[in-house]
């Protein structure tokens, strides 16, 4: 028994010693802590930015901490709600759809950057989504500017070249899909019945959203939303799509040649280019526009995120300066992250750089980044509001009815009432 108890004592001593050794967390005077969620994407771009800033300011180090995206949101939400600022980072990455929720739910928690950053140089929709009462809080990062990605080789077999897909409408795309099906038997689009991304893309392409600019619900009387759901029903009824379950099956569908195209955000480029054997067989056209809708464009957005400085930050001045100097101005930096991470930033001046001007043999030698950059500046600004996720869930709940060809007015009424219940 004595052997046991000395063993215990030793274990306890070791335990205590290591606790005190590792619980020292005080940061050095000029350390900027950043939270983000993908070490290979936004984490890697932040690392590149940090190295550039350190070259100019050797006294500043940037400490990048990555969490799973949902985890980061849980953490940020819990810590902001607790009202204690201990442990909050200096800079945090927030997905654009959730920006208004954080900015409006926690007033004063984030630092407005209007004095330090020239927002006229950024894509207007990215600035708008992080603005509350005339103050803009974000340093806009990656864009989800949309495009229509298609297998140029297989569509050419059916007689459709790039010109035939330039600035078309959805109804035109449906015609093309039918013609392709008839001539080659190929299926044009994969559709995931549990994802409402298509609706977000269609709505924003015509400058509309689930919410009005003042934040009030805009669903039951929203002509763009109605036109989007009608378009989607026509798309499904045309028999040119194939249902897929989940993300991996969705991406697997068009990279394996099972389906011929998809419409999605620019960030899909990397996934498509990972299939080196398909080089030269892909092309990217502008997103189709909605038919007969006021304000319809061929540009939209899916996803994207931005950097925010916490007001509680001890290194606030350095954090803001870091974002403004590198992320706000450095055109060369944006070339680097475009090449290395495939990250399309929101700084419009970046298009003047080498990498943005380069053409891509994978996409038939087209200047894809110049194109995306053109579309980026044309994306209509909308107010994502506080409840985009809730509205999305209400739409997904109605997708079975939409898919089975249900009455659109009833479907919209159901979405509207579910959203209104949650918004109250």
């Amino acid at each position, binding site marked *: 028994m004595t052997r046991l108890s000395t063993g215990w004592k030793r274990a306890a001593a070791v*335990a205590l010693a*290591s*606790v005190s050794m590792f619980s020292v967390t005080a940061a050095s005077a000029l350390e900027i802590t950043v939270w983000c969620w*993908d*070490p290979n994407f936004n984490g890697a771009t932040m690392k590149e930015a940090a190295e550039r800033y350190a070259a100019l300011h050797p006294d500043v180090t940037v400490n990048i901490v990555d*969490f799973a995206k949902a985890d980061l949101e849980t953490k940020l939400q819990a810590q902001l709600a607790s009202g204690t600022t201990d*442990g909050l980072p200096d800079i945090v990455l927030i997905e654009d759809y959730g920006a208004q929720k954080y900015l409006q739910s926690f007033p004063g928690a984030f630092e407005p950057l209007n004095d330090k950053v020239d927002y006229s140089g950024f894509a207007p929709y990215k600035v708008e989504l992080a603005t509350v009462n005339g103050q803009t809080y974000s340093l806009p990062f990656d864009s989800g500017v949309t495009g229509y990605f298609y297998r140029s080789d297989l569509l050419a077999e059916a007689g459709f070249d790039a010109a035939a897909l330039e600035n078309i409408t959805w109804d035109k795309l449906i015609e093309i899909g039918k013609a392709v099906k008839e001539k080659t038997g190929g299926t044009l689009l994969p559709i995931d019945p549990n994802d409402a991304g298509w609706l977000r893309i269609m709505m924003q392409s015509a400058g509309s959203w689930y919410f009005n600019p003042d934040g009030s619900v805009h669903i039951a009387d929203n002509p763009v939303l109605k036109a989007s759901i009608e378009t989607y029903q026509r798309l499904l009824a045309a028999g040119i799509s194939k249902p897929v379950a989940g993300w991996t099956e969705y991406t697997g569908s068009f990279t394996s040649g099972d389906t011929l195209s998809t419409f999605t955000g620019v960030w899909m480029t*990397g*996934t498509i280019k990972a299939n080196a054997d398909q080089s030269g067989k892909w092309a990217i056209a502008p997103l189709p526009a909605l038919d007969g809708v006021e304000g319809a464009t061929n540009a939209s957005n899916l996803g994207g995120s931005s950097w925010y400085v916490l007001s509680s930050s001890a290194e606030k001045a350095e954090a803001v300066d870091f974002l403004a100097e590198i992320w706000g101005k450095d055109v060369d930096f944006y070339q680097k992250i475009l090449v290395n991470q495939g990250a399309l930033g929101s700084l419009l001046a970046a298009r003047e750089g080498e990498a943005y001007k380069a053409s891509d043999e994978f996409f038939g030698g087209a200047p894809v980044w110049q194109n995306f950059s053109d579309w980026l500046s044309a994306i209509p600004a909308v107010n994502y509001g506080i409840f985009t996720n809730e509205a999305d869930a209400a739409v997904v709940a109605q997708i079975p009815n939409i898919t089975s060809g249900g009455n659109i007015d009833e479907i919209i009424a159901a979405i509207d009432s579910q959203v209104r219940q949650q918004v109250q």
Partner: protein
Amino acid sequence: MSNPLALLGRVATYALLIIAAFVSVFPFLWMLIGATNYSADIIKGKVTPGTALLQNISVFFNSVDMPRILFNSFFIAGVGTALTLLISSLAGYGFEMFRSKFREKVFGGLLLMLSIPFAALMIPLFIMMANFKMINTYQAIILPTVASIFIIFYFRQATKAFPHELRDAARIDGLKEWQIFLYVYMPVMRSTYAAATIIVFMANWNNYLWPLIVLQTNEMKTLTLVVAGLTSAYTPDFGVVMVGAIFATLPTLVIFFLLQRRFVEGMLGAVK
């Protein structure tokens, strides 16, 4: 076996059991096979072993500071388990062995607290830890778990089978109360401790939400947090994720197999 109906029933039973076994084992099999494949193959649904195991392992070890992360996980789970067993078993023992007017009321109150979800306690607990200046420390994760109501309840139930005569005999022999607990009760209840070790170690090892909230830096993260981080990338490397998942599963498996026999005894409430 002569009765064809009985034979049929037997076949049906085995078929059902084989299906159930397959359903519960398949995820593990998938994890092991996935670790040997490239991410692109896993997405395409490949179920045969591949050749990418070494590459996945090297990517995993290059992107994760494994010695440090493993230390964090083992330290938190190990110290947490030892303290939980000591404190909660002492409480369970006390509740059963010592009579008091308030005993049942206090115990009932404790059981009621089991029904409060952790999400409701999370933010007050975080504020408390921030006031103690314990954010981003091991203590912040270990301390809230050491008084586990479930383990107190479990030990109280098990203690009902502990013969009071043993305690009385020990008292007559001149042992003090703490000596009775340490030298008589603990050895006698070793099966119960073994079963509780598995339960508490697994709970600590897999603890997710609270470490996520309270840990702030890469050096402090536990293995479960790291593996979750790997899956959330825009283009996750599933082969690497599977390697991480194997490392996250292994310790609980090892502990379970080491203590398996005692675990079963402990669950049956055996006193030897």
